[in-house]
């Protein structure tokens, strides 16, 4: 196991910590303040719509990953398995159900309120449907609003798919939100929020694309999920989110001016030996150790797919205040896990080229078929198309039984040796300096 000292933090990290702490505090007070609570998922989330009804969103995946980081997930998973859930199935689901069985205590130690509405944004992951069918039985009487997001089967979003989603929003989702919140849908308010979303999205893309710089000022995977992305989902549509991304973008620009590398919990990554593109979710139970292996080897992730499950904004999508429901629909359908495999391969290939990556890595997650099924083929395609060395790791989201530090470290060491060899050859051939 790695030896970990106190984590080094940037101003934006502290800001996000405060924002999240306030969010969880507001949630813990929801019963007193009378705010209604909506459980929903990150991919295809309708945060602005929820906020426009003055309701508070809760994201069970985020709770699960937080439980993983706080070393609570192992017990939660065991409790869910005792209830009859198989060892084979998604550990986010088991962790969430285990957390609920243990009093639903959130990441800040405060109790999370029960849902007033289960908003099943069924986007890019089959398990979401099963997850909420289970929650519906565990919270009897709580209404469920189903929003079925059609898959980008043809590699594009068709108008009839948009129409299907808009109809569901109008006939199923919004009426249930009105009923639960006791408020009328206010399209103008929603549009105002979408304006904020688009502003934050512009800034987020700038931050993510700063990794095209050599050296990169950010890590687009570990830092991407640790402090760049989370604010985005829970606060999108608010002025705070816009402020946060302004702050972050300032910080990133400053790093670029000074030629600084990414901040990591171990300090600044000074020597960037390897630039990588990463596919797949991270492991959360040993997140910092996992990150540290890369840090120790001078490797930085310049682009990743997991940071796109909440939206692939770098492909140009922005929420559009002029067409609020259409743009929410297009947003849902555009999320990474709702893209078909050829689209995913195309995106990853583009990342390898545009971010001048030396290699492509997959962290394959036992729990997650939406990502994992087909990844070995994705790997071959990227290898063939881009010619960079590819690597394959295996772990899990929040089940510590499937994170083997020694195994992952060994595999990565061999992989980095391979990258080093390739660099030597490319240097000898005069391809790189």
């Amino acid at each position, binding site marked *: 196991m790695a030896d970990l000292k106190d984590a080094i933090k940037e101003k934006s990290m502290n800001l996000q910590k405060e924002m999240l702490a306030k969010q969880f505090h507001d949630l813990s007070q929801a019963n007193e303040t009378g705010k209604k609570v909506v459980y929903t998922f990150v991919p295809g989330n309708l945060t602005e719509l929820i906020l426009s009804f003055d309701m508070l969103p809760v994201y069970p995946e985020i709770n699960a990953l937080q439980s993983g980081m706080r070393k609570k997930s192992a017990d939660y998973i065991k409790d869910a398995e005792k*209830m*009859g*859930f*198989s060892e*084979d*199935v*998604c550990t986010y*689901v088991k962790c969430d159900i285990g957390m609920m069985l243990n009093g639903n205590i959130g990441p800040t130690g405060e109790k999370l309120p029960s849902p007033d509405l289960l908003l*099943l944004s*069924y986007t890019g*992951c*089959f*398990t979401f*449907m*099963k*997850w*909420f*069918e*289970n929650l*519906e*039985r565990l919270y009897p009487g709580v209404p*469920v609003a*189903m929003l*079925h997001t*059609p*898959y980008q*089967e043809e590699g594009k979003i068709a108008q*009839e798919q948009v129409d*299907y989603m808009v*109809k*569901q929003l109008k*006939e*199923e989702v919004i009426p249930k939100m009105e009923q639960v919140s006791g408020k009328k849908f206010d399209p103008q308010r929603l549009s105002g929020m979408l304006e904020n979303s688009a502003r934050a999205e512009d800034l987020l893309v700038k931050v993510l694309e700063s990794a095209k710089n050599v050296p990169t000022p950010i890590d687009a995977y570990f830092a991407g999920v640790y402090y760049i992305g989370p604010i985005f989902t829970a606060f999108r549509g608010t002025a705070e989110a816009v402020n946060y991304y302004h702050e972050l973008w300032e910080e990133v620009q400053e790093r670029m001016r000074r030629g600084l590398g990414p901040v990591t919990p171990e300090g600044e990554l000074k020597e960037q030996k390897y630039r990588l593109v990463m596919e797949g979710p991270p492991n959360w139970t040993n997140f910092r150790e996992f990150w540290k292996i890369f840090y120790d080897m001078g490797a930085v992730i310049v682009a990743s797919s997991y940071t796109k499950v909440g939206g692939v904004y770098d492909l140009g999508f922005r929420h559009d205040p002029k067409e609020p429901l259409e743009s929410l629909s297009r947003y849902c359908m555009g999320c990474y896990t709702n893209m*078909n*495999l*050829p689209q*995913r*391969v195309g995106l990853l290939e583009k990342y390898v080229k545009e971010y001048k990556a030396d290699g492509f890595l997959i962290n*394959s997650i*036992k729990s997650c*078929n*939406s990502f*994992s*099924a*087909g*990844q*070995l*083929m994705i790997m071959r*395609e990227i290898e063939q198309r881009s010619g960079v060395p590819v690597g394959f790791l*295996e772990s899990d989201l929040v089940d510590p039984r499937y994170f083997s530090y020694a195994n992952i470290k060994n595999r990565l060491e061999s992989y980095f040796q391979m990258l080093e060899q390739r660099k030597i050859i490319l240097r000898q051939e005069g391809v790189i300096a």
Partner: protein
Amino acid sequence: MDRLTEIVKKAETLAFDLHFTAARAWKQSGDHRVLVGYLPIYVPREIIHASNGLPVGIMGAGDRKQIIKGDAYYQSYICHLPRGIIEMALDDNLNDMDGFLFPAICDCIRNLSGMFKLSSKGKFQRYFDYPQNFDPAIGGIFYRQEMEKILADIRAINGQEANVEKLNHAIGLYNRNRELIEMIYSIRQEYPWRLSGLDTYYILRAGITIPVEEHNAMLEEVVDLIGEERGEPMDNIRVVITGSFCEQPPTGLIKSIEMAGCYIVDDDFMLGSRWIQGKINNTSKDPLEALCDAYLNQSTFSSAYYDVGNPKGKRLVELVKSRNADGVIFSAASFCDPALLDRPLMQKECDDSGIPHINFQYHENTGQFKVIKEQAGTFSDSIKLWV
């Protein structure tokens, strides 16, 4: 060999012919014929039939093919079915298929559609999305559009138009098919010893490899034959098997359950062929609408179908009662998220209704059944003792 044994033998051969000889022969014996391979669970086969196509069920390689290349495409924690299908695709077993349909039952099958796209297998590779909204004006329209895409895919290959008459004709044929299958299950409910669960499985599975007309003829004969007394009743318990709708259990597993003293009075092995409950209107001026109505209102319970408002656990309990079964065997493929995530809820419903149950996990190529046989035997004994 008596006639029923002959039929069962033929059905077994057809069911496990991974070269789809009968389907290929059908294609060669006429013009503009297409073969459309579909994966579990359900597709409206009627529209393929009406387009001069033969829908061919691809249920995986089972234990009839050694998987070597397929394993290189899948991690150990993914179910077995897709690796068998990739093996078949790489070994040219599927070369005569003109197109493929991947129904929306899970992320594995969904991503497999992308793998077929990446390798350009067949002239089309279509993910067939089931609407999870059941309002005819919303989900119904979406479903219709999904069907229209398939019709267009086939039309682009053979130029055949599925008109009202052809669609209604196909609907009538598949109505009869489902009716005959249900007749077999009804007879077996009363007299399960007349046709074993395994033989029933062969007969149903054969049906997804041949034209429906031929399958109907086979089923008619079977219904006649098992209408007469045959075999000997045994002191067995009666079970419903659930959770095996996609990756199919190895036949050894079905045999072991039966040998352990269980009559399988219902199951979801070939759920796609039994998906629609009852008849679909075959006299409509708008047969696609009739098919939409059937999907929205007559679908059976399934892990692929959003069930809030009509929970599948309750429907399972109703099935157990209507089949007069003594218990339930939850039998799912390892790593099958849809089946395994539904299991706790369904088990709870069984508990609440006092229905005993056990569960197994398997791979389609599992070869050892000793433990399963023992467990099923103990289950059977305990029910005989206490019920």
